[in-house]
């Protein structure tokens, strides 16, 4: 590999911006830079990297067909926080429901991110606005919600009596109530 071509290759590699032949010449004294660029461009044809010209400036870039390799997604299973679970339950039992109503039912304010998490999970969606002062957004559950929780429809949600029978409506014991109060809305 000829010295000029090597030099141009190194200069372009280390540069933080695309360079014009004149700028390259500031680093590489003498020689036919245009020819060296042409040689290099050809040499990299078919590589995972290519040398490209854009508006008279040259730079290396990864081959476009390999762009997908540079991004990698990782799925991380995450458990829904208690606040988000309560919020989801309220939406499911009362939909369509406004944020203020959710807070009234929970008895605790909900933080900004809570509904966002439910939307990101694909379990809650906005469902228009209530025609009342301020026209607040309404929230409802999605088909994905029904699927994830194994429900044929919202009518399959256990009723209050079912919950009572299952012991899920028993008054809190004091200790738990206290820990709830002090924890507030944790997410």
């Amino acid at each position, binding site marked *: 590999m000829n010295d000029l071509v090597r030099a141009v290759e190194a200069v372009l590699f280390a540069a933080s*911006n695309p360079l014009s032949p004149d700028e390259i010449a500031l680093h590489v004294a003498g020689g036919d830079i245009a020819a060296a660029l042409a040689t290099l461009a050809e040499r990299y044809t078919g590589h995972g990297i290519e040398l490209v010209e854009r508006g008279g400036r040259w730079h290396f870039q990864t081959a476009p067909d390999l762009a997908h390799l540079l991004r990698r*997604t990782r799925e991380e299973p995450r458990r829904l926080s208690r606040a988000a*679970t309560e919020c989801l339950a*309220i939406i499911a039992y009362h939909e369509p429901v406004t944020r203020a109503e959710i807070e009234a039912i929970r008895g605790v304010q909900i933080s900004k991110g809570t509904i966002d998490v439910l939307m990101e999970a694909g379990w809650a969606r906005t469902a228009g606005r209530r025609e009342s002062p301020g026209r607040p957004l309404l929230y409802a559950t999605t088909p994905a919600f029904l699927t994830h929780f194994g429900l044929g429809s919202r009518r399959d949600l256990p009723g209050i009596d079912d919950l009572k029978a299952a012991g899920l*409506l028993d008054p809190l014991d004091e200790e738990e109530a206290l820990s*709830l109060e002090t924890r507030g809305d944790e997410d």
Partner: protein
Amino acid sequence: MDRAEFFDGAGRDEALTLSLDGWEGPLDLLLTLARSQKVDLREISILALVQQYLAYLESAESIRLEIAADYLVMAAWLAYLKSCLLLPTDPEADPSPEELAWRLQQRLARLDAMRNAGARLMGRDRIGRDVFARGAPEGLRLMRSSTWQSTPYELYAAYGLVKARTQPAMHIVAHRAVMALDEAIERVARMLGTAVDWMRIEAFVPPSLDLAYAKSALASSFVAALELARQGRLELSQDGPFAPLEVRAAR
């Protein structure tokens, strides 16, 4: 101060300002002095080195005490080493003067080795100075996507919790067996007829296996006794706080 110049040119010129500030400790000074002998560190004359060191300290113009302490400790040790080396060999000495001298040489060699190693490291082809990484890497991105998880049980339990939390609280006081005051007054008054002498108040309480009832009966009987005493129908006596409370009919 450039050390090479100092040693090669001026020797121990009185006109030079000597100070300890330029040295990184006594070992550093010793090593530089040893180097000035221009022989392999293993061949240096320890005696000559000791002389050089002591002479340097003597000629050092400004000795700042806070930095001089280490140098003076080393000087004392070297003076001791020198006397050991000069005196007739004591076969009992442990470690022997030769062993001490060897250890000093070894310490100088270690420092010398690390000093050279440092210089060689710094002189390597270093990234950002001699070799360069790519100037504008696209970067590899890791996109995290959360797959949220929950279970029907958690959902229902959460709703149950919300409902339970916001349910209006109802307070029901469970039934408890108590002895009413009227009943106690009647009972104490009736039993007082049989009380010839002082009797403990507990004796007026009906025996019961129900501890709560027994407590209530005791409390009511006490109040009954106070009421009867106010009416002048009985006398109360107690020797001290928490002592047994005793009752008898008024005389």
